[in-house]
């Protein structure tokens, strides 16, 4: 029996019980839809987080902060404005280092504007931060050492803010009010390539750390951002920094984290999620598969006489086997296709809502279909072999 004949026979048989076929495939459809949607959402989310993390710095980037595992939080004693300078001097592994004073929610508005201020994040920092960010200024310049020492009231804004406030005329030289302090825009950062980045964290204003500390009326430096001389020097740079800091600030506990560690953490979280959801989808597929097996057993006993006839006409064991396996696989593939439609639809809707790329890879789709075929073979095997091993005369006698 060739493949086209097999398809045709399977199709005719399934068509005879349309409703039954569709209902049977429901379990498989739900399982496959779940798998595809979840993988797509996972991949989309991961891609979004990754690109955000990657935009934070190169593979030489590292951060030093208070050790939150020991419940340390940053206060005015954790870091001071000399720390980063000293670390850079003392450790040959550290190329750049910038402190950050963070204003997580500052009001941003144009002078003389009656509009509601927009919420932004203020990064008080030094020129070295630019090396840690994966990006550069699109217009103007970044902060300079002179800005920091002279307490210059200047700001570098990101592309999102520039687009909103100065859509046509260009931002350079314009004034913006941050927490009612006027700052002159000297630079605009280039647009982040990640749409997630744009959506979630595009409202950033960089100001000299000295100015930011005055504006926010704080001496707290929340973390140091560093860049090692090379990727290999990264562990050295981190441990040097920690040693120097612990000597300078006895009693404070610090911890360093590298880009890689952060990526690993994200990967861990997503792989655990994938595992859990994969297990749930697996159970759905299992239940669906048992449903298919059940309906195939029904089909075998309904068609016992017919099987006897096919054998009388010369069907070999393998022919009968193929026919019933084919039906089981076709049912599962049908479920897989239905599930795929819903899964891809769901993934797109969620990606649209969350504003990240809708990642439905060809591989996911092929894997899902392949998997439903495997489910079909696995759960079709027993009914099919039962059909194939019927004795022709006995099968013909059955009603």
């Amino acid at each position, binding site marked *: *029996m*060739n493949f*086209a*004949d097999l398809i045709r*026979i399977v199709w*005719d*048989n399934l*068509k*005879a019980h349309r409703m039954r076929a569709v209902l049977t495939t429901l379990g498989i459809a739900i399982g496959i839809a779940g798998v595809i949607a979840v993988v797509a959402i996972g991949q989309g989310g991961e891609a979004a987080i990754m690109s955000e993390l990657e935009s934070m710095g190169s593979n030489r980037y590292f951060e030093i902060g208070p050790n939150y595992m020991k419940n340390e939080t940053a206060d005015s004693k954790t870091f001071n404005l000399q720390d980063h300078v000293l670390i850079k001097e003392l450790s040959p592994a550290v190329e750049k280092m910038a402190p950050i004073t963070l204003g997580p929610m500052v009001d941003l508005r144009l002078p003389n504007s009656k509009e509601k201020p927009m919420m932004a994040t203020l990064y008080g920092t030094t020129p070295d931060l630019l090396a840690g960010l994966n990006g550069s200024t699109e217009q103007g310049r970044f902060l300079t050492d002179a800005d920091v020492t002279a307490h210059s009231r200047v700001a570098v804004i990101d592309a999102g803010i520039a687009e909103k406030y100065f859509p046509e005329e260009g931002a350079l030289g314009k004034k913006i009010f941050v927490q009612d302090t006027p700052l002159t825009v000297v630079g605009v950062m280039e647009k982040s390539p990640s749409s997630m980045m744009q959506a979630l964290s595009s409202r950033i204003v960089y100001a000299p750390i000295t100015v930011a500390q005055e504006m926010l009326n704080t001496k707290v430096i929340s973390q140091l951002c560093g860049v090692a001389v090379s990727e290999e020097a990264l562990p050295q740079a981190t441990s040097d920094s920690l040693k120097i800091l612990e000597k300078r600030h006895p009693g404070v506990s610090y911890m360093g984290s590298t880009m890689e560690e952060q990526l690993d953490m994200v990967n861990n979280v997503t792989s655990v999620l994938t595992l859990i959801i994969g297990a749930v989808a697996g159970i759905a597929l299992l239940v669906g598969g048992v449903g298919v097996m059940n309906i195939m057993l029904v089909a075998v006993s309904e068609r016992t*006489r*017919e099987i*006897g*006839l*096919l*054998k*009388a*006409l*010369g*069907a*070999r*064991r*393998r*022919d009968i086997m193929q026919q019933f396996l084919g039906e089981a696989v076709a049912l599962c593939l049908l479920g897989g296709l239905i599930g795929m439609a819903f899964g891809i639809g769901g993934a797109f809707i969620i990606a649209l809502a969350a504003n990240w790329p809708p990642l439905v890879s060809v591989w996911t789709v092929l894997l899902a279909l392949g998997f439903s075929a495997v489910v079909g073979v696995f759960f079709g095997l027993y009914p099919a072999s039962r059909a194939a091993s019927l*004795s*022709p*005369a*006995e099968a*013909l006698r059955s009603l």
Partner: protein
Amino acid sequence: MIEVKELTKVFGMGAATVEALRGVTVSIPDGDFMAIMGPSGSGKSTFLSVLGCLERPTEGEYYLDGRDVNSLEDDELADMRNQRFGFVFQSFNLLPRHDILRNVEMPLIYAGVSPAERRRRAEKLLTQVGLGERLKHKPSELSGGEQQRVAIARALANDPLVIFADEPTGNLDTKSSIEIMEIFQKLHQDARTIVLVTHEPEIARYAGRVLYFRDGEIVKEEANDELRRPDPDCLG
């Protein structure tokens, strides 16, 4: 040439056994038209099943053209049924979900015949039994006599030498029965071997030889001196 010796068939196990055949010995030369008669439960269908390789005998010998059938594997038996035998049943046994063209193509599919050749042969056979205009009809759209003609066309698909028919006219009216028997007569004239089970003496008279079964044994054998086409009136 079909030769069976001391063929027995026992159904069931232990105390509840049924001896459907108790030592049947007969030989059927090529081109023979043989009818089998006998009361219900006498083992006629069982005998036909064993001859048609639909089931294996419990004991006894079976040679087809000198070849020991009992020693064949299941798949070899399947090929034998496909290539050498054609079956016609009382209840037609057509596949309800496929059109009649497909029904007739079924044995050709298992024989691995190409689609074009398959279709050509099936169409020709259906035309020969007078159903050339109804190729795309489902079996349920045909009368009983027409369905049995489809079944005969199907039995002939691989041009077999032997046709086994178990009460082929049992579900048909007189007129259809005569039509069917005329087809069998033609097949006989084409030098095919025909083994036919029937309850009706009028049908048995188409055969050259009649075996009478009782309790799983051949109790009587009669030869019809010449093939006669019975008067339709005495059939009713």
